[in-house]
């Protein structure tokens, strides 16, 4: 929590004056030195797979902010792997904890986030504008409730050497080619490992894009009508059944998010959908494998379209914070290009900015195998797409309704029944 040494009614007025004089982008945090200010601000984020990202924040940014403003930044790193959301929910329910955070699944607690439109609009204006899709997450009822920070790209991670061995010289362009390659690789003892269990990203990051590429969405644009009950859904389900049976390792329908990383790194699978954390681990611990890992785009479906799923990182300020304005000032500061660009670069673009100013920056060229992740921003959609990213959509995701539609069909439920059950559950959730 932000701890104030004292609180004065005139402080906000003073800040407005200071901001007017110096300009918003010039850094309202500096003006705070002249006034009563919080002693510290708590900033919670899930730990990054690229360690240097957190290290840069702790060793460079936090001390710099303290030096400039006198406000200490307490960086609360939350364990990766799905435990951040329950922590955030607890914070919001108890009205205590961090002042601002990486607000994962923000639709759950948007009502507890303050309006940050001023920051988001200023940042967008100065850095080439925001990608459209992310606005559908951060803007709620016309107000920005979070400031997008970056996207964790999810792509096909594959073993180039094994693909070469079976004569697949370029990564499959369509799902049918993908299946064909998988059959050949499984025959050679290198099956695919496509996560379909109760995880939180590696499952929907390929199953949702696959559905979309068949021309199917879960809901209609307004989020009022279930759109899943179509013949194309049945075709997509039948395809996944075939893919699982003929190309995948048996275990993958029960996998949580760490399982595919482990299976890939132990040489059990030749392809999976994941962030580039597998490559990071391999380069560090298994250099030989690190050389032969490549990243491919999600294949195109029968519609000829290719889709990816966004895994957004957004920052929001909690309304229960003792000094939300101090937290907002800090948020504005970290999004200033002077801080933001080196920070993003320190993470090797693992968190890809949703800002067009980063479309052609040289940071994308640090590693050719990272470059494809930029494409995710162009073709990436939120899991709610085209419907609003609201609580109901979150419930569908967190109860794995769509994921389980596929796994039920795989484990023996007739395809029609699996779809009907999913549709019925979604209707109940949307009410």
């Amino acid at each position, binding site marked *: 929590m932000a701890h104030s040494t004292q609180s004065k009614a005139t402080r906000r007025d003073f800040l407005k004056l200071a901001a007017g004089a110096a300009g918003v982008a010039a850094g309202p945090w500096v003006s705070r030195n002249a006034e009563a200010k919080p002693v510290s601000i708590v900033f919670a984020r899930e730990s990054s797979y690229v360690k240097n990202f957190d290290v840069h924040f702790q060793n460079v940014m936090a001390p710099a902010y303290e030096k400039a403003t006198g406000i200490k930044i307490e960086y609360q790193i939350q364990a990766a792997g799905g435990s951040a959301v329950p922590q955030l929910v607890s914070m919001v329910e108890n009205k205590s904890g961090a002042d601002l955070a990486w607000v994962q699944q923000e639709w759950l607690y948007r009502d507890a986030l303050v309006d940050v439109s001023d920051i988001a609009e200023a940042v967008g204006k100065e850095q080439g504008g925001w990608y459209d899709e992310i606005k559908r997450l951060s803007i709620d009822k016309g107000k920005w409730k979070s400031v997008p920070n970056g996207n964790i790209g999810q792509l096909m991670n594959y073993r180039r050497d094994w693909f070469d061995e079976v004569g697949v010289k370029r990564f499959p362009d369509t799902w049918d080619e993908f299946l064909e390659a998988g059959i050949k690789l499984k025959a050679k003892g290198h099956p695919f490992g496509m996560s379909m269990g109760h995880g939180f990203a590696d499952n929907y990051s390929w199953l949702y894009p696959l559905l979309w590429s068949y021309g199917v969405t879960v809901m209609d644009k307004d989020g009022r009508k279930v759109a899943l009950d179509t013949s194309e859904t049945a075709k997509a389900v039948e395809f996944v059944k075939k893919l699982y049976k003929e190309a995948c390792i048996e275990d993958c329908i029960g996998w949580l998010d760490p399982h595919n990383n482990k299976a890939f790194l132990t040489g059990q699978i030749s392809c999976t959908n994941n962030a580039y954390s597998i490559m990071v681990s391999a380069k560090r611990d298994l250099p030989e494998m690190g050389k032969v890992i490549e990243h491919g785009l999600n294949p195109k479906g029968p519609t000829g379209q290719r889709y990816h799923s966004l895994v957004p990182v957004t920052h929001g300020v909690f309304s229960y914070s003792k000094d939300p304005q101090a937290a907002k000032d800090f948020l504005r500061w970290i999004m200033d290009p002077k801080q933001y660009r080196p920070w993003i670069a320190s993470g090797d673009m693992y968190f890809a900015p949703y800002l067009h100013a980063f479309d052609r920056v040289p940071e994308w060229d640090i590693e050719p195998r990272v470059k494809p992740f930029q494409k995710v921003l162009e073709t990436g959609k939120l899991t709610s797409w085209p419907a609003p990213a609201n609580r109901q959509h*979150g419930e569908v995701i967190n109860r*794995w309704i769509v994921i389980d539609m596929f796994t039920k069909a795989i484990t023996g439920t007739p395809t029609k029944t699996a779809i009907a059950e999913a549709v019925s559950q979604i209707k109940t959730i949307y009410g």
Partner: protein
Amino acid sequence: MSKILEASRAGALAAPTHQPIRFGRLGAFIERESVFSWLMLTPPLLFLLAFLGYPFIYGVYLSFFHKEVARTASFVGFDNFVKLYNDPIFWQAVRNTIIFTGVATIVKASGGLGMALVMNQSFKMKSFARAMLLLPFIVPTVLSTVAWQWILDPGMGLFNRLLVVSGLAERGPSWLGTPTMAMVSIIMVNTWRGLPFFGISILAGLQTIPVELHESATIDGAGTWGRFRYVTLPSLMPVILIVTVFSIVITFFDFQLVYVLTGGGPANSTHLMATYAYTLSMGAGQMGLGSAVALSMVPVLGLLLVALTFFVRKD
């Protein structure tokens, strides 16, 4: 030294044998058994009220409200329970919980009995073996479950490696990849963790059975099975039943193991009521609905426990 001792003894002998301590009226009041017992009971009761009673009552309260994260609650009566009644995943979780608890408890009880009978024999390093058997019970569940993830890994896991190396199978099963095997796996891990509790408790019970009973039975012509059936087992029944009651409660509410190992998948085949309550509350943000799932566990468990308690008393 001896002089000092003698002097003190002499002093002690010279002193009045019983010197009543005077605390006054307050002291006398506190000394009354009914007051003193309540004084001793109050701190733990307050602790239980704060850390168990309050969350439980709050959970009961929430289950009758439509409560989403960061929003105010609105009273909906039994609406949450009606929703659950019509929710197929809830009923699947109920079925899974009953199967999981039932099978795991039966395996743990019979395995624990066997373990205790073996541990009751004399053999070298008996104490060391007994101490080692407690390990699964001591290691934090999350930690041991992560180890189990590796053990159950299809390619690199210990089980499948052993099956392949020993020539028993060309390749091992997918322990977490099919609904049936995933349920078998979580029951197996739960059994591994809970077996020592049964084993050690029953062992303690075994050691209280008088040797004379066995001797009398032997004189009456009872063999090994006869002594076990008519002496050992009846003497152990109270212990077994009490340990079973405890185990049912712990197993029924198991969460960590499933959360870490399968997350309730694949296709909800290992979703227990506890994991489903968590999914609804913390994942989907439906605090009221999640609390209703948690509260639904109470009557099922309550009935089971009442039946067992009745049986124990009858026995």
